[in-house]
């Protein structure tokens, strides 16, 4: 499973939505995630992917997070 697929799956679980509707260019706001949903998603990603992610205003889209996780996994 790619990083995007894992993150899309976690978003779908967090918000109880269809995973096929999640695109890399979507912002979290587009997907209906508020600031605490993003914090919860980051915690779940840290557990699932074994990475540490500092939440910042620069994390706006799904791709922003994918890039950050892939950099840490290198």
């Amino acid at each position, binding site marked *: 499973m790619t990083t995007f697929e894992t993150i899309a799956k976690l978003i779908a679980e967090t918000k109880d939505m269809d995973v096929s509707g999640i695109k890399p260019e979507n912002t979290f706001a587009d997907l209906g995630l*508020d*600031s*605490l949903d*993003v*914090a*919860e998603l*980051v*915690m779940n990603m840290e557990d699932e992917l074994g990475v540490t992610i*500092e*939440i910042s205003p620069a994390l706006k889209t799904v791709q922003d997070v994918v890039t950050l996780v892939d950099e840490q996994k290198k």
Partner: protein
Amino acid sequence: MKILSFGHALPKRTVTNAELTQFLDTSDEWIQAHTGIESRHIMTGKETLSGLGAKAAKMALDRAGLKPEDIDYILCSTTRGEMTFPATACLIQARIGATCPSLDINAGCTGFLYAMDMADALLESGRVNRLLIVCAEQVSRLTDWTDRSTCVLFGDAAGAAVCERGDSLKTVRVSAEGDAKLLHAWASGGNCPFDDRIPEEQPLYMNGQEIFKFAVTRSCRDIESVMEICDLTPDAVDYFVLHQANRRILDAARTRLKQPVEKFPRNIATHGNTSSACIPVLLSEMAEDGRLQRGQTLVLSAFGAGLTTGAALLQY
């Protein structure tokens, strides 16, 4: 140690979300969706923190059938005492008519767990026979009432517990990760002519997202740790009594622990976050309405400025 009784007191004035929308760009719907809070109690000019603390203390003493002179020590947890000094514990001591040693502690919202840890040490060493914990908080006096993201979260309250030697407390664990970045409030400055700092009387600041992460991860870690020490599974616990910071934190912790909603009592909807008073106030209300019964297994967990955390497991 064992806890004989709990008591609590709330300011008379209730402030609803609708009232806050009169001077903040927010809405009842937003506050409820993001926090689970509908209203909170706020101290007005006529009320004092020591008065509130004394009222909670008297309720706890009455419920235990004890008099102020039966108490050997008062520990008051507060993030902003009534005065810088004397300690709020001394003001409460005078109000209830006790004569024992009294002092304040500040472990942020984790104060009740830190107080339990200290109470256990004092009682079990044999130096003290009966001890009164009072968590007295006036967070409304240190929040920035122009910051809609934080001022809506907090309320004022006092909770108390009367403790004596015994074996109902099975374990208590406290921790600190000294870091002011994510959550802090500045003390007010004096007028020293040699103090050339730029005044930083910034009221309470909180990074909500990082505190949410800290709260959920550490709370779950601490809860699992105290259950492991006592060789108990979550199913053997009657109630998980958590610091009432935000309904979303309570929900996230409950989901991770895979426990039903009834086992996570809450009063956040009507009280907001009352800092270290949350847990003793909630337990006192549960004693009042009959949910709290002798013999029940309770896990307590709190987190707060410091950053501090604490958890305890007790057979009430």
